């Protein structure tokens, strides 16, 4: 009999006070509590974090990287969304 699958979790860690949680990797665990403990053991052995989030991997909806061209095209042509597009003479100073 094949070994049954253990659910996959994505792990997010807040590395420093004030920063957002950042994705660091994934792990297998049978429930959320065990996933948190496993995340601590796997991803924070050297004090990498202040706080951990675990999210079931199948709860994540992702965009398709193969379609990134179509997905992000609307932003690419809009250079006027960047501050450097506008001419402000050096004498005016930082703005």
């Amino acid at each position, binding site marked *: 009999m094949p070994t049954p699958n253990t659910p996959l979790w994505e792990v997010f860690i*807040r590395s420093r*006070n*004030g*920063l*957002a949680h950042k994705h660091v990797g994934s792990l297998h665990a049978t429930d959320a509590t065990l996933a948190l403990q496993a995340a601590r053991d796997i991803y924070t052995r050297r004090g990498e974090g202040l*706080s951990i989030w675990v999210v079931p991997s199948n709860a994540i909806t992702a965009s398709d990287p193969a379609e990134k061209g179509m997905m992000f095209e609307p932003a690419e042509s*809009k250079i*006027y*969304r*960047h*501050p450097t*597009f*506008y*001419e*402000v*003479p050096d*004498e*005016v*100073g930082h*703005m």
Partner: protein
Amino acid sequence: MYTQALNTPDREDRCVEDAARAAQFQARIDAEERIEPNDWMPSAYRKTLTRQISQHAHSEIVGMLPEGNWITRAPSLRRKAALLAKVQDECGHGLYLYAAAETLGASREELVDLMLAGKAKYSSIFNYPTLSWADIGTIGWLVDGAAIMNQIPLCRCSYGPYARAMIRVCKEESFHQRQGFEIMLTLCRGTEAQKAMAQDALDRWWWPVLMMFGPPDKLSQHSDASTRWKIKRFSNDELRQKFVDATVPQAQFLGLTIPDPGMKQNEAGNWVYSAIDWEEFNQVIAGNGPCNRDRLAARRKAHDEGAWVREAAQAYAEKRRQRTALQAAE
């Protein structure tokens, strides 16, 4: 775009909470620790932030109206694209901020409903009309300039989700101010009539922009707790002075005159401005500004006319859920 110093503490907030926890909370604040959604916090802190962040969000959303007024009439395609992008940014800022407010336990729907009912405030500045194209330049240059002055310290606000939202907002705001200044510079280098239009816009916006920083420190009701909680890091008057000092040389560069003949530079180099008409500010905050009724009416209309979109999205999601369930059953 901006949040204003409108918070007034409620008496009910002063109830006695677990003193040990409150002391521990303050110690965390004093140690510059960020407070995160799941952390214990005094109910007054939660309430103050919910109000401030949601008012800030409302300001971004209502702030789209005065500028949106000129999208179809922008003088060139370049200006139109830029203005459209800017208004789109303000909408995005509103959404970041509603999301930050929701981490405190309120729902966006309930916060928006409060605004539509006229029970939640938004920045006084958006109750002024945009009469000419130069107003769009002035808003970018001064209104966004004032907003940046106010928002940069908020990037270090004690509440993590708000501080992080502000970092994102501030990055984007720089484009807004520069596009506004560029419009002003173009007008000021243009014909006499164009320069006069720029001056007229500055004359109308200058005082309302100074009021954006909120009441003078001696009258400001909310500052004590907000300062202690490190939500606010500079007083209204300090920020106003910083803004004036940064703006005067910019106006000089444009060759425009700030409509304050009594303004002088003191020995420290600060520009000392004349008395602000706080009665006008109070009137605008009380709902009697030039455009208060228009703004709320426009928001209500948009909300009502958008109801079918919300309903259709719900119905579509429900249909897809049922279809998936059916396929799974087969």
